[in-house]
């Protein structure tokens, strides 16, 4: 703006000086300078306009980037975070725990029992409904600070931030109990669904989150082996 004022005052001074001149040369000069002034004003106007348009485009690109980022970490069926998003969240949570910025976390992997049979018996649409409703039930059972992700086909991951092991056990037990006592709604009627889970607490000697996930997965496998419809803690002797 200051530059604009400075330029304008010089242009006005030039016009005032030209007004005092006479003769054909002065007229030519005046016409030439008028043209240059017109050109200058037009370029200046265009530059301002381009800046405005460019800023708008950039803002739109940023918004699109945000949408793409959100889509890239969301599971389209359930609306939960997908595995990629869960990896990012686990990495951040592990770093925070390692740096002493958080009290750590508990991690559960939950797998719907006999899900293949649901698909085979009732079809994939009903299978999808079970996944969607199961996800909603999980969301409803956990705390707002917990992160729930679709880890694979019928497998879900719960990251319980800053949860003590006692808190995590109570949350998980509550979910299993609720699932047992209230069937999942589907278009063909209510279906009784059970699940198996593995739970573990982050240890400072876990090498990255991979080993935390591995321990939860191991406990989940043991819960399946022990007859399903239950959860097991990673340190449980049944997991050995």
């Amino acid at each position: 703006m200051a530059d604009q004022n400075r330029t304008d005052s010089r242009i006005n001074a030039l016009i005032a000086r030209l007004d005092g001149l006479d003769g054909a040369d002065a007229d030519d000069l005046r016409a030439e300078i008028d043209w240059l002034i017109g050109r200058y004003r037009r370029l200046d106007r265009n530059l301002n306009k381009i800046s405005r348009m460019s800023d708008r485009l950039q803002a739109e690109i940023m918004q699109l980037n945000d949408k793409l980022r959100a889509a890239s970490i969301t599971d389209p069926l359930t609306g939960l975070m997908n595995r990629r998003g869960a990896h990012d969240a686990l990495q951040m949570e592990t770093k925070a725990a390692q740096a002493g910025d958080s009290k750590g976390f508990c991690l559960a992997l939950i797998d719907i029992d006999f899900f293949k049979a649901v698909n085979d018996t009732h079809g994939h649409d009903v299978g999808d409904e079970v996944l969607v409703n199961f996800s909603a039930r999980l969301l409803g059972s956990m705390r707002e600070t917990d992160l729930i992700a679709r880890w694979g086909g019928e497998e879900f991951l719960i990251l319980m931030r800053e949860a003590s092991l006692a808190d995590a056990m109570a949350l998980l037990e509550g979910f299993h109990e609720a699932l047992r006592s209230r069937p999942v709604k589907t278009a063909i009627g209510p279906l009784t669904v059970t699940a198996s889970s593995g739970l573990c607490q982050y240890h400072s000697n876990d090498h990255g989150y991979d080993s935390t996930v591995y321990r939860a997965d191991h406990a989940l496998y043991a819960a399946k082996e022990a007859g399903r419809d239950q959860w097991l803690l990673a340190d449980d002797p049944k997991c050995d």
Partner: protein
Amino acid sequence: MVEHIKIMGTRSSPTVECNPETLVLHLAGESYPENTFDFYKPIAAWLEAVLEQDGDDRPVTLNVELAYLNTGSIKSMMDMLDRLDEAHEDGRVVKVIWLCDPDNERIIELAEELLEDVSLPYQIITD
């Protein structure tokens, strides 16, 4: 004689035709070429040659069907519009027709913004 320019469009650069018979400059597609200045240089030169041709006062038409322009393309478009506007002020018959997809609000807004400062006759068609 001014040359006949035909450029096949790509994903990032528009289809161009500069016709010396009809004096219609037609641009269609999306415009975000890698080097915008180089891309538009021969087109601007064609327009300049047409407007500077001695004894030719036939009407000149800029026909635009661009759905997207990057910043460099916007600058090139502004330069061409300014040149046409100058010719219009000097008495040449010129016109601009911009055909927009009615669902593409962004391009309609851009066309309006680009044409709001010119005095030459123009039409923004959205159907």
